[in-house]
């Protein structure tokens, strides 16, 4: 009866379907943010390199000084993290690690502060795991993989603004399998303010962790901020990496060392092989065709990129390689990217 009366009032007020939906969306957004709040922490990284100093992350960057040229300054403000286990495990992005900070201090939603130590890092996904001495933190809830769908609403939250409350921005899931298949893309406003923070579904579950990746590879720089292009590591991939990160492992992207012919079809034709790379050591030569990685067939170059993107340096993979009319299986160990060995 009350529902009927409410509906009548809406009709009489001339409320359109959009106005009603907007109200529901607003309530759902606020509920999701309210639910996640205890699981989102603020991280202060103190000391380390000079303000505004841009530390190169690898030799190539050091040589080119790409980011320095763009005038990109390493921010020194607070960052955001997510409680993944009640006993003090906190996941965040590696963004602030480039400053090589001397102290990491975590502030939980109730204002308690903890000294954090760095456990593992996933450099391919710009994630790292911190440990604090705590027993009763509130972990976030992960969304089931099928909740991650392009076009659905996505809410980015962060604590990096230095204010009491969570900072919120909302967009949608814009794409999946970006950046070598490692990241999802969102239109929610992403910046150092919420790097390391969660990207939520309207149900308040974590779809992914916001990271400073960019399409060009390397770290995001200022030109894509607020442009409606942000990236997050999907919840399922984060969860898969957690056990290794807890062991203080440093995970690097897996490097094979072949330049594929972009026009490849029915197998990836190798255009070039990097000297000394795992591919070269395994005897792969220009002109060879890679038709599968493990069980997955690789008809085209992007399929090879995506399949390898899921692997880390040190992972053993089996490639099916054909040369002329013969086909053989090549087992090799992926290396860290050049410049990070």
């Amino acid at each position: 009866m009350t529902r009927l009366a409410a509906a009548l009032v809406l009709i009489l007020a001339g409320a359109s379907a959009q106005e009603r939906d907007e109200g529901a969306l607003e309530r759902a957004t606020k509920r999701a943010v309210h639910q996640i709040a205890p699981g989102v922490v603020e991280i202060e990284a103190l000391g380390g390199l000079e303000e505004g100093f841009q530390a190169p992350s690898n030799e190539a960057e050091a040589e080119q000084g790409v980011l320095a040229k763009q005038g990109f300054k390493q921010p020194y403000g607070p960052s955001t993290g997510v409680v993944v286990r009640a006993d003090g495990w906190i996941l965040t992005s590696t963004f602030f690690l480039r400053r090589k900070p001397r102290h990491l201090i975590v502030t939980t939603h109730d204002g308690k502060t903890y000294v954090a130590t760095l456990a593992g890092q996933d450099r391919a996904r710009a994630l790292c795991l911190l440990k604090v001495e705590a027993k009763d933190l509130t972990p976030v809830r992960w969304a089931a993989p099928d909740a991650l769908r392009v076009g659905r609403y996505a809410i980015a939250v962060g604590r990096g603004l230095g204010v009491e409350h969570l900072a919120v921005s909302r967009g949608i899931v814009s794409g999946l399998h970006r950046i070598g298949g490692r990241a999802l893309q969102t239109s929610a406003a992403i910046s150092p303010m919420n790097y390391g923070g969660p990207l939520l579904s309207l149900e308040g579950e974590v779809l992914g962790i916001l990271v400073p990746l960019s399409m060009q590879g390397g770290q995001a720089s200022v030109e894509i901020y607020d442009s409606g292009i942000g990236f997050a590591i999907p919840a399922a991939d984060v969860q898969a990496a957690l056990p290794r990160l807890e062991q203080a492992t440093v995970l690097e992207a897996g490097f094979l060392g072949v330049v594929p012919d972009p026009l490849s079809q029915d197998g990836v034709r190798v255009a070039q092989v990097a000297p000394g790379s795992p591919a070269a050591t395994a005897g792969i030569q220009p002109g060879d065709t890679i038709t599968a990685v493990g069980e997955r067939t690789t008809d085209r170059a992007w399929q090879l990129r995506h399949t390898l993107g899921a692997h880390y340096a040190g992972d053993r993979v089996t490639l099916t390689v054909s040369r002329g009319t013969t086909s053989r299986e090549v087992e090799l160990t992926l290396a860290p990217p050049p410049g990070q060995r």
Partner: protein
Amino acid sequence: MRLAFALALLCLAAAPAQDAPLDRAWQATVKVYGAGGFQGVPAYGTGVIVDARGFVLTAWSIALRTPSLRAVDVDGRSYPAQIWRADPGLGVALLKLELPVGGLGQAPIELRPLSLGRSEDLAAGDTVYTLGNPFGFVYGAERVAVQRGVVTTVGAPHEDARVLKLPEQLPRVILHDAPHNPGTQGGPLLTREGELVGICGRIVESRATNTLLNFAVPTELLRDFVREALSWREARPDPPRPPVAVGSSAPRTGIRLLRAHLVRSPMAYVERVVPESPAAQAGVQPDDLVFRLGGRTIRSCRDFDDALEALPAGQEVELVVKRGPRMLTLRLTPEAAQ
């Protein structure tokens, strides 16, 4: 059946050309044209009619300082305008439009103002709309552009000035994620219901987070400004002088920090604690790293000095220090400086 028909009629009668809440705000929004186009200051902006006598609230900008200041209303009528009251500290200005005197057989112009709503209840996640003239590409009777977003946060920018520093002296600002372009400044920030809750400011860059942020001045800070200015008989376009900084009056704590002479201000390590001082009573020890003082995060000795300046003497505050692998929360009561 007859009831359903009546209801349908009611619905038709209530259905406007635009969504009703936005329509009201549209009627009250004007395009503002000043001088500028230099040093990245756009000559165009947006404003809101807040009084039918022709008073327009907009964002403060040096571009407003021109005798050729004009505003164009929703029907494309262009009015000469002057600054009636300016307050760079609040980041807003009130303009007075010169309305034409209605001649014989000419209907006087009726402006449809928007009254200041309540910004006090806004919270993160609330849907907001902005109306503005991005890049100045909306002309004449063309209606200004609508953008939708959510409130990112409502907070105090000076709580930790190094994180979010605005040239304005605002105790509270609304941050939102609706797209912001040059020309949006001065336009209304609206709730879903079309209530005016803020005036859009410029885009600000946070040096600490390297982030571009959109802010709006909440209407709760503007009520007195508007009310007072409306009671004036003439324009007073000169902005008030900023308060002159007085000498240091920081209270004493008895904490002596380790201050090396470096280019950058070092982290706030305690070198020595004055015996029987407030710090000694609080339990501060040498080698403690000061992390928070009175709610402010301390990243350097300079931050410590700034936070201390802001503390009232004789009042207990929270001091958070890192001692080895632990964080400690101490209670410190600074003494008045002598």
